[in-house]
């Protein structure tokens, strides 16, 4: 019985649907890149500082203060920044780390679009519709459209 080297599954066994494989691969690699960026950003943040003053952040965090108070006291923001604030602060260590976190959170969004395209290739109309609905919900959420309408 011939088996695939990576998975140990026989070559004549049922193949997993392409849409699933596409989703898994895209999500995994994007998350991994995001995690590395976030870790590098945090290390720089710990040895230097960032947009949000780290000692102040730690004090306020441990004092149970809300996100609004932390932004106001530690980053000098009169209002909590809404949307993708880190895109303008990528040169700051915590902005970079937050960019990595956001990239990681984007993994499933991109993966779902990839899965929808793969499902379309397999001509599974109902599941193309399901995948598109999920992809649209995730995209609207990531763009902040759903959150900002609230």
């Amino acid at each position: 019985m011939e088996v695939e080297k990576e998975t140990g599954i026989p070559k004549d066994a049922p193949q997993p649907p392409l849409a699933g494989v596409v989703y898994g691969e895209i999500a995994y690699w994007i998350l991994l890149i995001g995690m590395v960026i976030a870790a590098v950003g945090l290390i720089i943040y710990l040895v230097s500082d960032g947009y949000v003053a780290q000692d102040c952040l730690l004090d306020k965090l441990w004092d149970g203060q809300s996100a609004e108070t932390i932004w106001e006291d530690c980053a000098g923001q009169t209002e909590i920044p809404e949307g993708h604030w880190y895109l303008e602060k990528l040169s700051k260590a915590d902005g970079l780390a937050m960019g990595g976190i956001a990239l990681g959170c984007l993994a499933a969004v991109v993966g779902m679009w990839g899965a929808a395209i793969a499902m379309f290739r397999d001509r599974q109309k109902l599941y193309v519709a399901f995948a598109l609905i999920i992809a649209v919900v995730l995209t609207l959420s990531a763009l902040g459209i759903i959150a900002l309408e609230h």
Partner: protein
Amino acid sequence: MTIWQGFCKSAGSPRFWAITLIIVTLLVIGTGIADAAEETTDTGGTSLSPIAFFFLFLFISIIIGMVAVLGGVGGGVVFTPLMMGFTPIDSYIIRATGLFVALCGSLVAARPFLRRGLANVKLLFFAGVPYAIFAVVGALLAEHMKNSMGDSGEAIIRLVLGLLVVGIAGLILFGGKRAEYPEIKSTDSFTERLGLAMSYWEQSIGKVVSYKVKRAPIGIGLFCGTGLISGLFGLGAGWAMVPIFNMVMLAPLKVAAASSKVLIGVGDTAAVWPYIMKSGIFVLFAVPCMIGLVIGTMIRARMLIKIKAGFVRYLIIALMLFSGIKLIIDGIAKF
């Protein structure tokens, strides 16, 4: 005398030492958090340095990752109640971070499950629509409660989360017997038309497993509720997904567990963005927790060989009951 003899007999077994090791570790976690909480300055902050804070939460999250997966639940369902019950950190920030770490664990696990066909991609898309939509609704509701209800909103969230965590612990304890390969003699026409049946290669028995599912309409309703809870309380949803897939829709246990793990990543992605957009995630707290949970999840694979998950399950139940009761008491005290 009998107790002493029993103790001596148990002390010779690896099981005894494994459980002792985990209890000691959990005590170390609790003591570490409690000590850190006590080390407050006059201004109400902590005397911990940011680097010490990083390593403290890295260590705590590694242990949470190891213990949670050994007990058969995702990281979020242990992380969020534990952090809310035992740290003074704002619940909104904890829920945002809890969702993020649950999401990371899920996406890391998705790849091998989908490559092996263990996670049923059609089942994922079918369940993902109600789950993702209601996870967003839950996250928006959490933001609304925080803004409009102030301290009483915080009290309600702690109280309800406490009750929920106690309920989940009960579900894990008395949740009924899960069948590895449930037998389906007949299925309803709605589920049949969805074409959710699939086959995969089962490595442990060395043969192809073909399966069907049933009761899809009930599943839709339950996925809506699970998504809402997941978004509202920043919990992963592994505790609910596996029973829905396996006990309600009768998917094989491994398929249910794998599909649940992948689906959590989808739902949590939908739920986490409203928190990110409202700047509820802080890197100093989120990154060590993320790294710790992923490392803990990876380490447990080696540990699983030596420790039976069943014993750890009871420790998780005890931990969840403890966290849940503390959240209920906190919630009542805040009213």
